[in-house]
């Protein structure tokens, strides 16, 4: 029998190995942005390639890694040696989008393959139409950069300079890419070194038994959660704002069937793949589905592939969620992942309304290129105002987190730094009342940012993202949140609303951008909201008195003493 002490300690040590890999990556990765954003994830996989332990940094990386490592392992099935390190990024070889490069190292002990040590990092530039990837103009995968099917980056411990050179040469920043790949290499080696120590301390067969128990534990948690849901067939449906047809919505239908603690996720009804960067390769699709189940279960201990055993995913090759060549996939980890997570959460919410979560604001960003006050060119990215998150049975949603694929990932920059470094003036940054979906638990509020372009020459704005036409969904009778609403006010051309795919929009100096971000979806019917909470919402200006009466049915809604108005009046 496996000693429970050994199991508890080995499990903790395996977790610590991945944490140390992340710290090693942080402290050796080269491109200044990567070592500060930490857009990377480390995992240990069992010899049969199931994720045993992971350092959570980017949820969407996680479920995708086993598939990538499996295909890498298969590609070198008869040709794996101690000290080999494999590399791949190809979406059609288990990858997600091209900037995400995975390194995987087989770990041998006693002449036997025992673990895989892997680290996936989002590289700054991997070639393609536009610097940094995410090119909306891509119509096929080759537009998006360099495809790397499984190759050996190191053979028997020796780094293959030829491969490194070839890959780095395909980046606009070859030194950054090379430095970051070397950091990934150092991190997986650090992971392997720590495993070595573990195998010195514990018997190899005992460790294998622990791995099995950890995976079984993950499976048990997921099955228990699924059994706690009403068994049956549940549908979820989300939509994407698809570019080639303005205003057009592309449905993402999901059918989840629960039976005896097992889930079948049917994605075969979703549309055919499109010649735009929103296709999601199978590994990314799997990852998004797994993220949704983990969010729904809320048990971090279940974060391993054991939980995936309880979930079967069915896709249709050639579809948006299982595309074939030459589909471009650049936005799959953000836009498509969000839409798919939403649809799965909706279906699961039907199976267990108690655990349902309202929709989150999607990501809607833009970049501004122009000349600053000294006439020097600049490029600025809008990273503020992320929007609200959905309510759940116990709590209202949060303001300013957004993005289900990575809620609250990286902090926004400071307003003072922004104003000091760019020809921009932030005139207002505040919560936007009445944006949160009404409900027993209200969706988190969206925000309002009023931004003035103060440059010397016209600037060009390029937008990307989702969430203008599709608002965050409400659940269990809760209302949808308000969608994103970005407007541009110019002296000459008046006001126009910004679409998620607008590009080349010219801003004259003095132009004002008024960006209201989406509010989260509500949970439960609004009239069942605690009356004191509604009164507080009105008193705090989260909800207008009119909405409190009309939507929440509050009879005695007070007129709030809105101090902001009084300030404006004195102006």
């Amino acid at each position, binding site marked *: 029998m496996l000693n*429970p*002490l050994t*199991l*508890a*300690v080995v*499990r*903790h040590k395996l977790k*610590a190995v991945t944490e*140390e890999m992340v*710290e090693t990556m*942080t*402290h*050796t*990765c*080269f*491109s*200044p942005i990567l*070592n*500060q954003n930490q857009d990377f994830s480390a995992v240990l996989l069992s010899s049969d390639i199931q994720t045993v332990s992971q350092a*959570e940094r980017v949820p969407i990386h996680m479920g995708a890694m086993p598939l990538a490592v499996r295909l890498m392992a298969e590609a070198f099935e008869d040709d794996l040696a101690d000290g080999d390190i494999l590399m791949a990024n190809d979406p059609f070889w288990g990858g997600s989008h091209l900037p995400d490069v995975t390194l995987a190292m087989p770990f041998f002990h006693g002449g036997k393959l025992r673990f895989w040590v892997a680290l996936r990092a989002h590289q700054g530039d991997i070639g393609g139409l536009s610097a940094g990837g995410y090119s909306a103009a891509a119509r096929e995968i080759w537009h998006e950069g360099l495809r790397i099917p499984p190759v050996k980056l190191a053979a028997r411990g020796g780094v293959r300079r030829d491969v490194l050179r070839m890959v780095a040469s395909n980046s606009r920043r070859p030194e950054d890419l090379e*430095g970051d790949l070397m950091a990934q290499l150092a991190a997986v080696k650090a992971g392997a070194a720590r495993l070595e120590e573990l195998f010195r301390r514990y018997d190899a067969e005992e460790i294998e038994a622990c791995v099995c*128990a950890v995976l079984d*534990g993950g499976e*048990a*948690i997921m099955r*228990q959660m699924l059994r706690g849901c009403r068994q049956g067939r549940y549908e979820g449906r989300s939509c994407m704002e698809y570019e080639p047809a303005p205003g057009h919505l592309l449905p993402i239908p999901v059918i989840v069937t629960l039976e005896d603690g097992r889930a079948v996720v049917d994605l075969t009804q979703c549309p055919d793949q499109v010649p735009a960067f929103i296709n999601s390769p199978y590994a990314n699709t799997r990852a998004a589905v797994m993220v949704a189940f983990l*969010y729904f279960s*809320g*048990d*971090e*201990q279940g974060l391993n592939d054991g939980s995936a055993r309880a979930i079967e995913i069915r896709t249709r090759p050639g579809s948006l969620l299982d595309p074939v060549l030459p589909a471009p996939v650049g936005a799959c980890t953000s836009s498509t992942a969000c839409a798919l997570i939403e649809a799965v959460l909706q279906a699961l919410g039907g199976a267990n309304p108690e655990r349902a979560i309202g929709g989150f604001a999607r990501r809607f960003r833009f970049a501004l290129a122009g000349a600053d006050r000294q006439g020097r060119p600049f490029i600025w990215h809008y990273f503020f105002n*992320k929007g609200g998150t959905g309510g*759940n*049975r*116990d*709590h209202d*949603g*949060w*303001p*300013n*987190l957004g993005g289900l694929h990575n*809620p*609250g990932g990286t*902090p*926004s920059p*400071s*307003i*003072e*730094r922004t*104003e000091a470094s760019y020809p921009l003036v932030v005139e*207002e*940054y*505040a*919560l936007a009342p009445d944006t949160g979906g009404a409900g027993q638990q209200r969706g988190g509020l969206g925000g309002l940012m009023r931004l003035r372009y103060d440059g010397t020459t016209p600037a060009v704005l390029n937008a990307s993202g989702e969430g203008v036409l599709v608002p965050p969904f409400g659940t269990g009778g809760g209302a949808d949140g308000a969608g994103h609403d970005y407007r541009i006010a110019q002296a000459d051309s008046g006001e126009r609303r910004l679409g998620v795919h607008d590009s080349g929009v010219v801003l004259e100096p003095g132009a004002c951008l008024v960006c209201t971000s989406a509010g989260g979806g509500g949970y439960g019917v609004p009239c069942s909201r605690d009356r004191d909470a509604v009164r507080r919402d009105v008193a*705090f*200006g989260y909800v207008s008195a009119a909405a409190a009466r009309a939507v929440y049915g509050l009879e005695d809604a007070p007129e709030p*003493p809105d*101090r902001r108005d009084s*300030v404006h009046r*004195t102006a």
Partner: protein
Amino acid sequence: MMIGVDVGGTFTDLVAADPLRGLRFVKTPSTPDDPSRGVLDALKLLADELELTLDTLLPGIELFIHGTTVATNILVERRGARLGLITTQGFRDLLELREGARDNRYALRTAPPTPVIPRPLRLEVRERVAPDGTAVLPLDPESLDAAIATLRAAGVDGVVVCFLHAHRRPAHEQAVRAAIAATGWEPFISLGHEILGREGEYDRLSTAVVNGYVGPGLKTYLNRLFGRLTERGITVPVQVMQSNGGVLPVAEAGTRAVGAVTSGPAGGAMAGALYARALGLPQLVTYDTGGTSTDICIIQDGLPVERNRAELAGLRIAAPAIEINPLGIGGGSIARIDAGGMLDIGPMSAGAVPGPACFGKGGTRATLTDANLVLGLISGETFLGGRMRLDVAAARAVITQEIAAPLGIGVDEAAYAIHVLATSRITEGIRLATVRRGMDPRDFALMSFGGAGGLHANAVARELEIPTAIIPAMASVLSALGFLAADVRQDLQQTVNAPIRDLHDGRLAQVFGALEVEGRAALETSRSRGGHAGDIHVRRFADCRYERQVHTIPVPLEPDDTAADLERRFVATYEDLYHHTHPGEPGIVETCRVAVFNTLPKLALPVLDAAPAGGVDCAAARTGERRIFIGAAVMAPVYWFEEIRRGMVIAGPALIDSAATSVLVLPGSTATLDATGSLCLSDAAAPAGERAC
């Protein structure tokens, strides 16, 4: 006589240093309803020991340094002052928007944070300052008067004032203070630019808000304490330990309250630094395991590592402070079988109430302390000097029920599994804290303190491959000891935001010179309020980054450094941390900072005589034996820490008890005493001429 007093959640620790009487320490229960009573209790106890009375003891005190959890508790328990905010028009919600970040991305059902200032009390006034410090919009007196009147009518205790770019032009924030004063109202005022003089509106705002939130409570407490001490004859002002490892006199400490939120752990780090210097240890990692958590600190070249930003109880504090890496493992940490059927421990804690099951205060969950009691590692009779009887039967029952039965193992095995898992958690926490600094734990010495640390120190050192674990004789009062290693400290900073290479023509010297003048003036103010007149010394830092980066790293500078020196030091510091550099990428100075110190009298650690040749028999220190379970049941001899002398070599398995802690010596390890009277646990064979007992 110099006195350090640390008021913790459970105990009030006092250390007294006196040239004639040497080092003394006492420990008394804290009195949470009025912590100043516990301080008086401790002083009374000391007076008794010295055969003095309070009235004869207090006038002889030359230096009194105090650390307290009052500010921390106010913050953690969210029972701070009722505050109002006055801010730039359009920005009252910055506090609630935070910066759009959070940790734990899988937990989507957590409650949204409640801002400590509710929205109706966050008021806006018309004013605007540009990034270069010009007033684009003058401060509008009408909206200001309205805001002040509203807050006054609402009955707030404190007002936080934070305007955009106020670090460039403080005049508008100062004008608000004047306007409030002109009305005759006297709330507790926190001005953003005074609390933190650099760029970053959320950092300034949040730090000033924390200051206002804990300020009134801390100030009231400090005034009461100082009043009581003055009544009884103390003639020097109380100095208050700060999170940055320095001290401030009581008057300033009350108004700069945010500086006191981690004063206790900072004292521990300062003590670690004191030992590192005394023992000549270039790299030391300390861990302090108490009731609910373990605090890990890194001491490099005799100084604790600092940081510029931390989150505490969900709130950003962006003032310079000693870096504390908290880990959710302590004596009260709850062990449980998780949903996957595996044993796990922490971060949930039974705290002091109900506490571990063996405390007999209604605790029903299995904790680390219960496990250590079942294992015989702590004694039900001598825990905390016998002041708290422990119920072994209750501990066995709870571990049987919660852990052993579900796992189908014996109670001893279950307790041992909890003990070993806790060791593992501490080990990996320390490893990460060192790796995070770009360093290898094997290059460090390890120091353990806090009530629950000594039972794990030997095993933690072994797992980290650190040759020696050090447990100071005063491990249980180490924070209070560390207070007596502190100087008065003022931190000042200025945002520069320029490429290092552009800082020619002595601009660097000019910025630092101005900061230093300001810092010396601040120290003079402290002195004029009754502070000590010691030597003044200055440490300079520049917070630098590469051009494309977001976060800075602190770069220490020498007084005469030029921009070229700074560039060189930045690159070297970056290389230490990240193991590479970016030739050709410009380095940027974001902020220049100075820490100005007024040297205080220092405690000197005792230096024990060398061991007599031929070794010393351990029998004199031995008090008995206990049955312990460390994977197998063994009888372990028990020694009394204070009776151990240099030259004794205690071979494991053994237990070393003291009034406040227990130390486990593992089989294969030995314990000896070093020149500072600290226990050293190591696997090395006993030196020739000494014989193991």
